[in-house]
């Protein structure tokens, strides 16, 4: 299993974010930022500058990493919540974080699943102890991929993960999501990351594209000023 953190423009802060939680991870950076990031880690995977946006970048990583199991972690992930029990437990220890991911990779491999991840909402009261895994939703933030049969849609610069998971639901029938743990993002203020690709027009275009591509299996919910994507596939 190889943990990759795609990152851009955040060499000054990533040591306090995802690189602290996954110190052994490989940083995937643009050729123009090698110098800045090489001060932090000698594990760099350097992509050409023309590879931009979530879909193209994730696919580039899959095309350039030999390990059959790749876990891509957003660079703003800072900690994990365990939702087992009535109170969530905050986990910041790197060994534990890696163990959580690694065990999930083993479970997915054993289950014959090609895409896996974790609960995207840290709400212990909605976590069902008797149903620790869900099979019919999507993952983002920390995305595990086994094999190379599925390919990211490189037209999607922003919302590529949900499309990838829907592809997995279409072809592999399930996505394995561990409901016990949630990886938490601490949003960066300002630029960096994928910010350059974001615009309301681009977002609207991708939503329209996803809606047409997946029809009733993707629900786009506007609530409290944010757009929530809900997979409506029953398994």
């Amino acid at each position, binding site marked *: 299993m190889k943990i990759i953190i795609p990152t851009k423009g955040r060499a000054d802060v990533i040591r306090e974010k995802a690189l602290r939680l996954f*110190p052994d991870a490989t940083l995937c950076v643009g050729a123009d930022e090698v110098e800045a990031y090489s001060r932090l880690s000698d594990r760099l995977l350097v992509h050409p500058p023309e590879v931009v946006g979530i879909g193209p970048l994730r696919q580039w990583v899959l095309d350039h990493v030999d390990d059959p199991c790749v876990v891509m972690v957003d660079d703003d992930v800072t900690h994990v919540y365990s939702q087992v029990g009535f109170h969530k437990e905050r986990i910041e220890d790197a060994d534990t974080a890696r163990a959580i991911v690694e*065990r999930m990779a083993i479970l997915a491999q054993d289950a014959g699943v090609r895409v896996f991840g974790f609960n995207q909402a840290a709400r212990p009261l909605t976590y069902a102890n008797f149903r620790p895994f869900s099979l019919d939703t999507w993952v983002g933030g920390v995305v595990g991929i086994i094999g190379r049969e599925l390919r990211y849609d*490189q*037209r999607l610069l922003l919302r590529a993960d949900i499309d990838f998971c829907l592809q997995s639901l*279409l072809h592999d029938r399930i996505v394995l999501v561990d409901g016990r743990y949630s990886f938490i993002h601490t949003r960066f203020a300002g630029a960096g990351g994928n910010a350059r690709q974001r615009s309301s027009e681009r977002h609207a275009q991708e939503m329209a594209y996803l809606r047409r*591509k997946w*029809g009733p299996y993707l629900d786009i919910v506007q609530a409290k000023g944010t757009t929530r994507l809900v997979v409506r596939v029953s*398994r």
Partner: protein
Amino acid sequence: MARTENAAKNAAAPTAPPKPPLRLEWIEAGSLTENPMNWRRHSQEQLQSLRELLDDPQVGWAGACLYNERTCRLIDGHARREVVDPKTPVPVLVGNWTAEAEAKILATLDPVGAMATGDVAAYEALIAQVQADGLWVRDLLHQTAAGLVAADVAAEEGPADEDQASGLPAMECQPFEHYDYLMLMFRHEQDFQQACEVLGIKKVEVTYPGGLKKIGLGRVVDGAKAIDRLMAAGKAGGGA
């Protein structure tokens, strides 16, 4: 007789060569008057893409504006006129049309072009050969490809009021399909070991940071395989 003489004189007099119906000239962008009937609105994305292409040393000017010298108005090329310095000479096809014809050209030039449909595979093969360094042009290529795919999907979906689910029938579970899991809790070492043996649960290596390796158990068994193994163990047990 006088008429015949005049005609002969006229025939002999040198006349200026007629202007070709359409000619290419380089004209300062600022001197091209916008057409008040222009109905196209240009987004910032479009203007940025144009700028990027015009600044691209490999591309530069690869098309001309269209100008009606009779009305002294631009017909096509408003965006190109906007993105360059007014002093810049730009390539212009100059023609001569009535105001009515000008309106007809303005109303049909872009829509006729837009009537062409796109072949997704051909476009993808084309852009595979295109090295786009600029973000705006790259985005334009992605958007065009996405638009072609979306149009393809829409065409496959059929009429808008048709049940959209028919577009992706494979997403629906077949009657026999079912995905779920069971958990088994053991409270006795012997039971656990026996279950691992019967179900074929293997040891797996777990690597920790620093290279430390620990041996753990893979704990997921495919349901169909589990049934086979349990049945085989049952038969073996029954035969013993």
